[in-house]
């Protein structure tokens, strides 16, 4: 891909600068070099991939799944009930302007160090973009098209499935693309606050060991999870919206 040439170049320059800087400064617990991180990653690959990654992944999947079910349900409910829309929509929007994540520590008190405290943080952070994406999508349905389908005698549920749901997909996927990286961040923050395994937990724990490379290694994997999940969503989106492409 020639168009990414400059990016790859820049990235390489950045990595090399980092490596050189890290070697010059030479305090690996403050600034480990990319090389040290890679080596650490290799050393720890078993424990990270077989123990901590599954724990984090469980949090991410559960959190996203619950957000999806809840968010889509509420979006549809708001779409069909004017009262619900008027009651919920302003609150949803307002909730986005407040640092709701500051509530995360409370979850630890409510759910203890179980997976649910981290799932709750993940839901808290991913619920909004999914709900708003779906709802705005449903609302974006072309009114004239909807009326046209009515004149063809289609029932309300036919119109919902054949017109409104497909109309909502682009906006829904936009929301999902925001939510997916957020879910990784949510899981990591949840794990900082109290956990016994998981990549966020491991990274924080390495901090207490003054192991700089060990702090970065799980972050590299977390980033990788974020990118992979994002690409998965892109692929699903492409499948559903394939009619858009040339």
């Amino acid at each position, binding site marked *: 891909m020639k168009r990414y040439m400059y990016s790859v170049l820049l990235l390489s320059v950045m990595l090399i600068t980092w490596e050189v800087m890290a070697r010059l400064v030479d*305090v690996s*617990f403050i600034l480990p070099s990319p090389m040290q991180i890679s080596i650490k990653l290799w050393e720890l690959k078993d424990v990270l991939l077989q123990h901590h990654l599954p724990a984090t992944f469980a949090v991410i999947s559960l959190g996203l799944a619950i957000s999806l079910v809840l968010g889509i349900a509420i979006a549809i409910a708001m779409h069909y009930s004017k009262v619900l829309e008027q009651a919920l929509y302003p609150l949803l929007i307002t909730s986005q302007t407040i640092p709701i994540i500051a509530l995360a*520590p409370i979850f630890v008190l409510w759910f*203890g160090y179980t997976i649910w405290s981290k799932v709750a943080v993940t839901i808290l952070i991913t619920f909004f973009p999914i709900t708003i994406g779906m709802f705005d999508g449903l609302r974006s349905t072309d009114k004239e098209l909807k009326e046209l389908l009515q004149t063809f005698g289609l029932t309300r549920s036919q119109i919902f499935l054949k017109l409104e749901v497909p109309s909502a997909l682009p906006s829904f996927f936009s929301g999902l693309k925001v939510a997916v990286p957020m879910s990784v961040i949510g899981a990591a923050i949840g794990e900082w*606050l109290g956990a016994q395994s998981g990549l966020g937990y491991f990274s*924080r*724990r390495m*901090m*207490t060991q*003054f192991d700089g490379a060990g702090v970065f290694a799980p972050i590299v994997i977390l980033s990788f999870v974020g990118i992979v999940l994002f690409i998965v969503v892109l692929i699903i989106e492409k499948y559903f919206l394939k009619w858009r492409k040339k």
Partner: protein
Amino acid sequence: QSEGSNDKEQNKYHKMTLMLDWYPNAVHSYLYVAKEKGYFEEEGLDVEFQFPANPTDPLSLAAAGKVTMGMYYQPDVIQAVANEGIPVKAVAAVVRSPLNHIVFRADQPIGNPLELEGKKIGYPGIPLNETIIKTIVENSGGSYEKVDMVNVEFELGSSLVSKKVDAVVGAYVNHEVPQLKSEGHDVGYINPVDYGVPSYYELVAVTSEKTWEKEQKEIEAFWRAARKGFDFMEKNSEEALQILLNQQDEANFPLNKDVEMESINILLPKMKSELGFATQEKSSWEETANWLKDNGLIEEVPNIDELIVNILP
């Protein structure tokens, strides 16, 4: 004009930051006395105290040169130096035996470390606590494998009383115990020294090698002032406590006077030394380092002579 003279006033003093091990409490009375009574100023020092947001910040920020000194725990200092080569030096021993006790709710008393098997134990993410539990459980003939360790960061007390865990390690006999009691939570504790853990220094002060090179004189001056503070605290513990309590405003950690008084009483014997407050003994460092080595927490005992400096009165 007055602003200019103010600037000069400040320039006269050498600025120093000390990161405490925790929010200010009785164990820091001597520091606040030294500040309040002007002992630091007499030495030409302008000292600022910081409190850590992260349990490991006093060591890591001292090592990174972001604070002049940090209050830390002897076993953790040894590990950091041995395992990661963190460039720090210990300059003073403040509390000379463990405060870290195993605390449990009195409605579920734990008479013997053996009973920890099958229980959930909260700890603040520091591996040493795992070793303490391991040492006392195994010295009592139990199996560490059967203990469920849970990282609860700083929320030791809340996790215990909210029954998220059955016991906690990392809690201090001079702080969490009287604090929880004063709030009506009945708790009991086990002293790890009774079950095979060496009587390590609970609190030491560390600085980075670089800072030591640059500010050796000032650090020595600091401890001269601190000793004066400690002498005062020893003789007038009530007044010393009052100075500490006066320091706190609502923005700070609100302290309970009775709790802190009890704390001072527990602390004083553990802080006093025949050789002088804050002096260090090489043997203590060696004993602790060997215990850590035996438990696999470090591979090599670091060079103690390089690690510590003994600032004599």
